[in-house]
């Protein structure tokens, strides 16, 4: 159910027709609710520096027209980003990025990626294939999240816990 590898090209495209630096793409097979996919793609773009404070998110009408999704879904995603303090709506103009997800996260991310890589080497040596790795990470992550009682994505629950893997 989780998309383990983050497909960045899905989240960020070079299409410059809109005033926003990002364009959303949906993965219909991911099992992740549509609004949450949009939230996650914004968060990933923020983490990886494709979106900065002051940048505009695609206008609701543009997203609706290109993805053929319900406008209420896009509004819900943008409201969620506003609740998280990541974006805010400017009446008549659109929704803009307010905060970054912290510049400090980039070196930390690199470090985590490093340790994940050495863990993967171990897993490979132990004979785990890719699916085995995904299954192990997924179930461990679920245990971890449940133990922390983390379920901040209301309405998504177990379908969303894969979002923290970058």
């Amino acid at each position: 159910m989780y998309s383990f590898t983050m497909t960045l090209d899905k989240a960020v495209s070079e299409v410059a027709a809109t005033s926003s630096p990002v364009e959303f793409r949906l993965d219909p097979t991911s099992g992740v609710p549509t609004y949450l996919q949009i939230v996650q793609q914004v968060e990933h773009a923020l983490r990886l520096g494709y979106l900065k404070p002051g940048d505009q998110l695609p206008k609701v009408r543009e997203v609706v027209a290109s993805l053929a999704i319900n406008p209420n879904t896009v509004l819900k995603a943008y409201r969620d980003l506003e609740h998280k303090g990541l974006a805010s709506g400017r009446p008549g103009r659109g929704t803009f990025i307010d905060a970054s997800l912290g510049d400090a996260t980039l070196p930390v991310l690199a470090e985590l990626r490093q340790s994940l890589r050495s863990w993967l080497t171990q897993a490979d040596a132990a004979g785990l294939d890719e699916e085995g790795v995904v299954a192990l990470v997924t179930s461990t992550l679920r245990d971890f999240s449940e133990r922390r009682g983390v379920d901040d994505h209301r309405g998504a629950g177990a379908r969303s816990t894969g979002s923290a893997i970058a």
Partner: protein
Amino acid sequence: MNIVETTGLGRRYGSTWALQDCTLALPAGRLIALIGPNGAGKSTLLNMIVGLTTPTVGEITVLDGRPAGSLAALDGIAFVAQDMPLYRNLSVGDMLHLTRNLNLSFDTVLARRRLTELGINEKQKAGKLSGGQQAQLALSLALARHPQLLVLDEPTAPLDPLARHDFMSSVMTAMADDGISVVLSSHLLAELERVADHLVLVSNGRIRVDGPVDDLIEEHRLVTCATAAASDHPGWEVIESSSTGTQTHRLVRLTSPTASIPSDCEARHVGIEELTLGYFRNGALAPLPALTGVSR
């Protein structure tokens, strides 16, 4: 405000009830998806909403309290029936002319602009257009009336995937631009995952489930347990169950917000498709009351 409200609505053809005991309150500004097997009563309900069929029993109002079928109701509703109702021997331009003259208000400028954007030539005969273009023409004629409610009976069923995407994109853009409400019947469950925010499941002439998609997703789980450990739990309503000697899958509805999943079972959320199939597989179930959202 409710875009459609029914109380004890029923329609009988001869001795057969096409729809009965239908009580609904459908909110405005949403896309309401009507799902059900063929012959379940979907088209009967749609026809009563737009005033083409009169109820045998019960009441139905639309657009915040206007009696269905009244002039005040008809003026605010646009309906695209299942077979893309166009006069096939008329040109696109003549279809525009005809529709303008048959309606109290008609935005010719909007209709022309949409058709130009879609690359549809007004001189072409309606019957010579591709399936996707015919659907878009019917939709353009409907939207040019600036309806508050757009009713679509299986609009994308005959279309190829690209035409279907473009059609739904047009409908969704109309929702974003004008805040219209949409009631749509469809068998294309995967498509509904992206567009529906309210579900009404109909089978055997009865409403089985009615509620906002978010609430329904929140309330249902697919629970997998070892068959030996599979037992009933308070706060669960089992919608569908299948089991092998070792494993039992159950689609459950959590009837209380505090209901929990036993630690030796795995649970996950389901999408519209799995939810719908679960309810329809278990056709023997008594009709369910309208679901109410879990309080947050």
